[in-house]
């Protein structure tokens, strides 16, 4: 049966006893961290909060070198620069949820994040690690995709490179994500729907100018092997009322262009596809 072929295992063997021995590196700067990662080769990993990395090591991730970023200064700031919110890659989920600046500029993030994961993970896990893990169930990657965020990498050659969230990492495998920037000038309208987690999660980012939605992105979590982004098919800018009236049609158009979602023990592919459509329609209506 095809569904069983693609199903994730119901249980996996995961234990701290499986964590391999590794070389520990504790750089003091981003440049030093990048050099250590490049020298370590394919068995090297960056480690920030460590929630994801340690759990992967418990599942057998063959790490030879851990580059721990805990002593690297300057990567945990939250600031507004040129109409963009600049979030250091080492900002924790808890700081994102409680930052007065985030609450003022992108209040939906501050409203959504107290419900993300649990308090222990929010206190330790970082938004940079959340993106780079490319785990389909992680939430900040969705926010970044929906917001069309820019990822700032320090590359192995010492240059700073800025990439869009659709290709996190890309050819920057030894590069270090240092910051994420999102629009903060009120043109970005974000909507989250986590009500069907862990089957499907959704984030929508709408670019609003003079009260009209000119473009938008839909980020889908939990339904594919990695977070997936799709563009909102808008030929012309729409008022929010027009967007709400066309929500059902737009949702159908988006879903028609998506690959088949995963089938696993939590939901079938067809059910996930149907729920993606429902959540898009609901979120577009709510955005109005």
């Amino acid at each position, binding site marked *: 049966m095809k569904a069983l072929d693609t199903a994730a295992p119901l249980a996996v063997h995961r234990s701290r006893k499986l964590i391999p021995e590794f070389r520990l590196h504790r750089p003091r700067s981003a440049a030093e961290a990048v050099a250590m990662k490049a020298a370590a080769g394919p068995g090297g990993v960056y480690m920030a909060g460590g929630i994801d990395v*340690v759990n992967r090591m418990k599942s057998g991730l063959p790490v030879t070198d851990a580059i721990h970023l805990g002593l690297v200064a300057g990567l945990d700031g939250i600031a507004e620069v040129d109409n963009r919110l600049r979030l250091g890659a080492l900002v924790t989920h808890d700081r994102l949820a409680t930052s007065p600046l985030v609450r003022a500029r992108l209040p939906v993030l501050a409203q959504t994040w107290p419900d993300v994961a649990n308090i222990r993970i929010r206190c330790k896990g970082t938004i940079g690690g959340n993106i780079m893990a490319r785990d389909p169930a992680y939430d900040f990657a969705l926010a970044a995709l929906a917001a069309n965020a820019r990822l700032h990498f320090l590359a192995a050659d010492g240059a700073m490179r800025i990439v869009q969230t659709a290709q996190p990492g890309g050819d920057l495998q030894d590069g270090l994500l240092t910051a994420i920037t999102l629009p903060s000038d009120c043109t970005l309208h974000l909507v989250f729907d986590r009500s069907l987690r862990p089957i499907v999660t959704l984030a929508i980012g709408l670019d609003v100018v003079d009260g009209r939605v000119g473009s938008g992105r839909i980020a889908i979590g939990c339904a594919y092997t990695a977070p997936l982004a799709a563009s909102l098919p808008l030929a012309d800018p729409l008022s929010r009322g027009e967007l709400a009236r066309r929500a059902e049609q737009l949702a159908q158009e988006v879903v028609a262009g998506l690959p088949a979602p995963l089938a696993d023990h939590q939901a079938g592919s067809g059910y996930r596809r149907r729920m993606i459509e429902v959540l898009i329609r609901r979120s577009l209506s709510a955005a109005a």
Partner: protein
Amino acid sequence: MTEAIEIAVTINGRAHRLNVAPRRVLADVLREDLQLLGCKIGCDQAVCGACTVLVDEMPVTACTTFAFEVDRKTVITIEGLAEGGGLDPVQRAFLEHGAFQCGFCTPGMILSVKALLARHPEPDEALIRQWLSANICRCTGYQMIVEAVRAAARSGPG
């Protein structure tokens, strides 16, 4: 591979210098090296909360934190709460409200509550339940735990 490294850490008010292998998690160091057995290991996946300890006053899963990460930090385990033979107000409230049965989750639960009350001295029930959703109890059904937290909040800091 990196040999054991020396870390300096204050645990329950006492300064320690420990040699730890990088791959060892904090829970194992607390339990095996220091005999602080109140740090329980349940799921070993950072989910159940039984291994919760406070690191620089933040709740942390000791099963998913390497020991080297607490270098130059302060750790509090359940053994560090009672002072001079007197229970901490949260411990007392759990006792008075029957907020535990088997007790396996209780140390992590109490330390999570300490962190909650440090940040929100007067939490409402929704906030209490939101924070304690990270600590799994399979015995009590949570109602008495919530009542204990509200009582501890009313009694103020110990």
